[in-house]
């Protein structure tokens, strides 16, 4: 049994220790908002927060998680009230939407660290997240909008 803390809840899972966090979230815990895209930390679709830091859960074995808190897209808010979700909705960012959980988790981590990011900050923080629908222009605008919403909160 491995003890995990996911979205503020502690839970026990019975999985092989080398199992990537991604598959524990998706198949064991049913948190399917975190996506599988490449399995090599190249696309960012599986991005979650580990101890507040964005990590690629496809390359994070469950044995390396320990008691560090994990936050997934499902844990961001119960009602789309997180500034990043609000901005994403306001600008209708997603198209197919498959990458967006990962985009949002990367953007959220960026805005926690840098509440007023520059274009270069956005380029750097979002470099690991592929959007095959090419919604980058809206993602950039939504990060700016989220920064605004966040600053007023």
């Amino acid at each position, binding site marked *: 049994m491995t003890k995990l803390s996911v979205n503020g809840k502690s839970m026990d899972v019975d*999985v*092989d220790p080398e*199992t*990537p966090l991604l*598959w524990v979230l*998706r*198949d*064991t815990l*049913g*948190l*399917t*908002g*975190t*996506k*599988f*895209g*490449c*399995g*090599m930390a*190249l*696309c960012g*679709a599986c991005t979650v927060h580990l101890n507040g830091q964005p990590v690629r859960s496809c390359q994070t074995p469950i044995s390396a998680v320990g008691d560090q808190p994990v936050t*997934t*897209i*499902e844990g*961001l*808010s119960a009602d*789309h009230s997180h500034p990043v*979700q609000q901005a*994403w*909705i306001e600008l*209708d*960012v*997603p*198209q*197919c*939407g*498959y*990458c*967006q*959980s990962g985009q*949002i988790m990367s953007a959220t981590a960026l805005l926690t660290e840098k509440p007023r990011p520059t274009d270069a900050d*956005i*380029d750097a923080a*979002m*470099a690991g*997240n*592929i*959007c*095959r*629908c*090419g*919604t*980058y*222009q*809206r*993602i*950039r605008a939504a990060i700016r909008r989220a920064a605004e919403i966040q600053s007023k909160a």
Partner: protein
Amino acid sequence: MSANPIHVSRRTFLGGLVIAIALPACKPGAKPAGENKIIESNAWLRIGTDDSITFLCDKSEMGQGVYTALPMLIAEELGVNLDRIKVEFAPAGDPYVNNLLGTQITGGSTSVRDGWEKLRTAGATARQLLVAAAAEQWGIDARSCSVENGVVVSPHRKKLRFGEVAEAAAKLPVPKEVALKPAHEFTLIGKSQRRKDTPSKVDGSCVYGIDVKLPGMLYAALAQSPVLKGTVKRFSGDKAQAMPGVVAVVQTSSGIAVVADSWWRARKARDVLEIEWDAGPNAALDDAKIAAILRKGAAGEGRVARHDGDAAAAIKGAARVVRADYELPLLAHATLEPQNCTADVRDDGVDLYVPTQVQQIAQGVAAKAAGVDAAKVKVHTTFLGGGFGRRLEVDFIPAAVEVSKAVRKPVKLLWTREDDMTHDAYRPPAFDQVAGAFDAKGNLVAWNLHLTGPSITARMFPSVTEKMVDPFAVEAASNYPYDVPNVHVDFKQQEIGIDVGYWRSVSHALNCFVAESFMDELAVSQKKSPLDFRMALLEKQPRFRQVLKLVARESRYGYPPKGCHHGLAVMEGYGTVMAMVVEIFLEGGKVQVRRTWCAVDCGQQINPDTVVAQVESSINFGLSALLWGEINIANGRVRQTNFHDYRVVRMSEAARIDTYVVGSDGPPGGIGEPATALVAPAVCNAIYEATGRRIRSLPLSRHKLA
């Protein structure tokens, strides 16, 4: 202006009106308190006595916005606000056949064009029946009644909700004709609406194929031949079978599947499968061989797609002839959601949960794999994590069905990224020869375009190519827009041994690169500006002139900032005309696409914000292909495996895009694809401006531009 009467065809309302009753769980005989009857007004619309309205969306949502645009068409005529309509994906079925393509299919930028009359008519017919039922109840003339957000209102402000009259409405005869609103009466169409799927896509609740979970479901990973079209000679699953969690090892029609209690365990156990492959006919296939096959195949005449005047004679008698050859590589689709399918094969039938663009074809191959009639297969379409034409293929479906049938449990079969990259139906490569001829006065008198490549349609819809040239090989070629007296376009089908597939914008992307690059070559040969040269040949094409003028003005075409260069392209595709200008900057031999302007005439827009979003999406899709896109073959195997060696545009590389849509109430054109095709010629024309070098093969990463 009067309303447009639309004839209601038998096909549109196949089966007429049906009443289905959905009863909540209750004891037999007990009077259910909250009984809700669901009335099928027609194939697309269900109205509950509880006033719920459900639209059965007959197109797959893969990002292009049908989940919002199509219910807008219904809502406009039905007389309800968009937020009143709940959307579900339609099952496989004849009423949902795409009239433009002949089967149930989401592709070819046809969703709005196919639904434009069909769905508005469905909404208008349901509304007319609901109003008639209310008027009958009141004993008044239906024409005196109106509709306000799902409520029928009498002249004396008496009200009946749709849910109250839906049952009575379903018993009335379907009107032979219904009136559709003229464009100036639209309250919804043409006004940007929030996407109905956005909330579920920012909280992780949207269900894609990969997210399907059924009780007792097992997971499968599939080992496929590393050489394309290779087969299993012999195998042993003993070691895999001994791995933790493994339930079975199953030979399928497309490889060896490992079935386990989690996908990760199945995927790990796949590594220890012992398989001897028969490489088959492609064992020695590589890029050089494919190029040679195409060049050899180019000899001789193909099937004619366009023949005006006599181009051959005009070229012979011309004062000046310009010729060039163009080449394009294979490309992968690389949808971010890898291919997957969940199948539940039982004695009483098959349920298929699948992200697909072709429900009926999926149903057909699943039925064959299960050994049952198609009617026994129920297709549940999920959201698609990208389509781009990849999910017009059904190659990932039979194995899932075969595995479920073998283990008698529901099974989710999921490919890895590497499986996906190395087993695609790739965008066809091309070898194209083009010639333009001028008379002594410098008039362009002939255009001859000879296309060579494999045919997708010959494999997927052979009945089409038995009769005619592959229509999806000659787009942006047979509709050459310029006023030239002698035009000849032909397509020489030359297969290369591996499967090719429809890829966003299909042959537009191949042929627009050739045609619009070569138009620049011709302009240069006459020492004319690319814009003036085109405009002079587009006197009879007002839509082309309009978008060219608009994009030239907005981009200040010809006056780029210092150190930057402009290039342009124009095209008609899917009934949409668009023009593009790009601004590039060359640094250390690398092209940076700084800005892109796109002017669009797509006729009547449905959801304008989606039109803009699709242009942006298409441009970045085209940009990835232009900069780095190529699939290389060595020893019959695909060399690229993941996003490190099949690069796609990331945040810092994405273009800044400004989109301008011209107002029009002409018939809607397609918007999900066409902009993809203009990126390569526009950028390569800018590169010529910058360097004097003409790029005639892609991707750009093959060329040193320093």
